C-alpha cells in the first residue's frame, strides 16, 4: 500500500516568508509525528498528533512554528517568518495506535532552504 507522502519535496524560500509543509500519513494511522533533521541539531522531535489533537508540542522550537491535522489524516506544518536556521529536512512519520510502541513509518521528507 501507499506509504507516508510529503509535499513539496523541496522548498526554497526567502527569509521572512511563510511556508507550509504537508504530510499524508498511511491510511488508518492515528498517530502522526513531525521531526526535523538539520546538520547542527541532528534529528529532533517537533510535535505529535493523536487523531486531530496534539498532546505533545514540546519540540516546536518557537511560536513561529505551528501544525494542524484535519480529519485525522493530513497534517500541515507551518513556519511563519522563516529564518535561515529553519533550513532543514522536515520528516513526517505515522503509526497505528495500539498498546506498546509501534513502528513509525517515515515519509521522504521536505527539504527546506531559507535564503
Amino acid at each position: 500500500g501507499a506509504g507516508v507522502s510529503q509535499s513539496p519535496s523541496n522548498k526554497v524560500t526567502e527569509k521572512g516568508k511563510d511556508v507550509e509543509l504537508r504530510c499524508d500519513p498511511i491510511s488508518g494511522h492515528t498517530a502522526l509525528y513531525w521531526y526535523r533533521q538539520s546538520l547542527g541539531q541532528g534529528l529532533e522531535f517537533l510535535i505529535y498528533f493523536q487523531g486531530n489533537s496534539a498532546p505533545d508540542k514540546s519540540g516546536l522550537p518557537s511560536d513561529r512554528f505551528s501544525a494542524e491535522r484535519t480529519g485525522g489524516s493530513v497534517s500541515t506544518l507551518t513556519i511563519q517568518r522563516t529564518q535561515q536556521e529553519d533550513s532543514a529536512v522536515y520528516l513526517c512519520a505515522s503509526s497505528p495506535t495500539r498498546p506498546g510502541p509501534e513502528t513509525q513509518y517515515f515519509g521522504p521528507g521536505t527539504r527546506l532552504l531559507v535564503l
Partner: protein
Amino acid sequence: AQSVTQLDSQVPVFEEAPVELRCNYSSSVSVYLFWYVQYPNQGLQLLLKYLSGSTLVKGINGFEAEFNKSQTSFHLRKPSVHISDTAEYFCAVTLLIKAAGNKLTFGGGTRVLVKP
C-alpha cells in the same frame, strides 16, 4: 530526559567484512530501542526494534542488535556487508508515555561507507 549517543560518526568498511555500530543510551526509566537506516535522499526505514524478551534482536537485511541493560547499550552488527548497506544509521529510544505518544529521541547517526 533520555539521550542517545552513537560513538562513531563515520565507519568505513570493506565489502563482505563485518561491521558494528555502537549505541549507548541514558534514561531514568525503561526505554524501547530502535535502529533506523536512511539511504541517500530517502526517509528513515526501521531495521529492528527491542521492546522486551530476548536481548538479541534480528532485523531486516541481515542486521542484528543486542540489548545490554547493564551497559545501557544497543549495538548493531552485520557479519558481512554489501555495497548497498552504504547509508546513515540512527539509533533511537522512546518511552511508553501514553499522553506523549512514542516520540523518538535519536542519536547523532553513523554514516557507513562500504568500499569494494
